[in-house]
């Protein structure tokens, strides 16, 4: 992999070009991660340098949609980190039950695994019907896949094990139909979800919600963009609303830390003061 100051100059120029031409703002993304993804993109798209990639992005309309797949990360599982969902069931749901209607925001939903996991857990806990989920992402391809709710069957064993470890009272197989090598999630889950294009870097608050989850999204942002995104989540949450972050993410280094308290020993759950 090519590294060094020149490479970083080319990357900054490319990200500027993308922002001005396509209004996608990757300029405050974690540089270490962007470097890796652009190295993969250059290899796959056959561009020797980032400058050549920039030229293609600006002059060949097919290139940017392909590059976007490298720049946005789409790796998740149903019930990733089962203890997160176990804590949701035991610590968070009892308080959510007290609301007559619920709104949940899944920020950076990618291909949908997180929002469907929440929907399945909400159904198991008996609060699905009163809930609207807003699942947002910047990648239109990922949103289309999320809406389709079809996952390869070979991923089901991992999903099933995660689901079981999350303390689920039902079997995962009650929530999907297997057909032609794929698992199609139950349509009644999909009915409660609104998928939408939304950028944590450039868009603003769109609803008041009782729960936000944003797991393994902030890790790709620099500190300034993390603060912007967390500010949106803070402003979206009602008083006593909950914020769920990734296992290795923390509010400790954020300027919004004082707006939240931790209701339990589980590091990844926060509650709005």
């Amino acid at each position: 992999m090519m590294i060094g100051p020149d490479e970083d100059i080319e990357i900054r120029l490319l990200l500027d070009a993308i922002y001005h031409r396509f209004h996608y703002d990757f300029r405050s993304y974690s540089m270490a991660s962007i470097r890796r993804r652009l190295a993969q993109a250059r290899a796959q798209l056959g561009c020797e340098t980032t400058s050549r990639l920039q030229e293609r992005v600006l002059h060949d309309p097919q290139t940017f949609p392909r590059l976007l797949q490298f720049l946005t990360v789409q790796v998740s599982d149903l019930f990733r980190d089962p203890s997160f969902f176990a804590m949701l069931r035991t610590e968070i749901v009892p308080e959510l039950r007290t609301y007559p209607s619920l709104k949940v925001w899944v920020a950076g939903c990618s291909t949908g695994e997180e929002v469907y996991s929440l929907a399945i857990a909400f159904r198991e806990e008996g609060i699905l019907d009163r809930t609207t989920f807003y699942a947002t992402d910047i990648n239109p391809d990922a949103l289309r896949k999320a809406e389709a709710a079809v996952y390869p069957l070979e991923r089901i064993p991992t999903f099933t094990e995660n689901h079981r470890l999350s303390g689920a009272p039902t079997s995962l197989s009650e929530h999907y139909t297997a057909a032609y090598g794929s698992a199609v999630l139950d349509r009644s889950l999909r009915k409660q979800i609104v998928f939408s294009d939304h950028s944590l870097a450039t868009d603003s608050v769109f609803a008041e919600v009782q729960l936000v989850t944003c797991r393994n999204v902030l890790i790709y942002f620099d500190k300034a963009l993390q603060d912007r995104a967390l500010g949106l989540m803070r402003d979206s949450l009602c008083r006593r609303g909950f914020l769920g972050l990734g296992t290795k993410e923390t509010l400790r280094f954020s300027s919004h830390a004082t707006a939240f308290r931790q209701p339990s020993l589980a590091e990844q759950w926060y509650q709005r003061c």
Partner: protein
Amino acid sequence: MLRRERIADVEAGRLEAVVIGTSAGGINALGVILPALPAETPFPVVVVVHMPPREASPIVSVFKSRCAIAISEPRDKEDVTGGVAWFAPPNYHLLVESDHTFALSIEAPVNHCRPSIDALFESAASAYGRHLVAVVLTGANEDGAEGVAAVREAGGIVIVQDPATAEMPLMPRAASARAQPDAMGTLQEIAAVLRAGAIARHR
């Protein structure tokens, strides 16, 4: 021990960070290296050990009781401070930013591995340049070979466990084939070099 002149820089404490990569046999190997480092080790030691992906890693507790140097698993954006051996959390890539903070990633596995040694080494090479020491120990795959090449290209120092003395020779062999090591030796010899570097400024 095979050694070239720049190892004297390491022993004199002229380094800013150490990165270590290992897989099969790695826990035993680190059990020789890490206990040799004093609590006052001025530089950070960042470690990737390939482990089965699970939520809570037992590694931190395994080494805490046996080491003077602090043992920790970083949170996203935490400073890469000295005096700590930082372990990549299971199922995440661990990267170092140019401002010497940690960045985590769940990008696809590299060489079937997450965390990947290559991913850590390449980012650290970019962040520390010639002041980085990269160490490859026992392992049963070739992760780390591209990483040491990036470290070498950025002017850093490469130390590899002698494959003949490694529990699993494949990983150190692939690394030394990809970048001629500045030192190649036993675990005890590598531990002595790093320890010398860690206490150099206190002498």
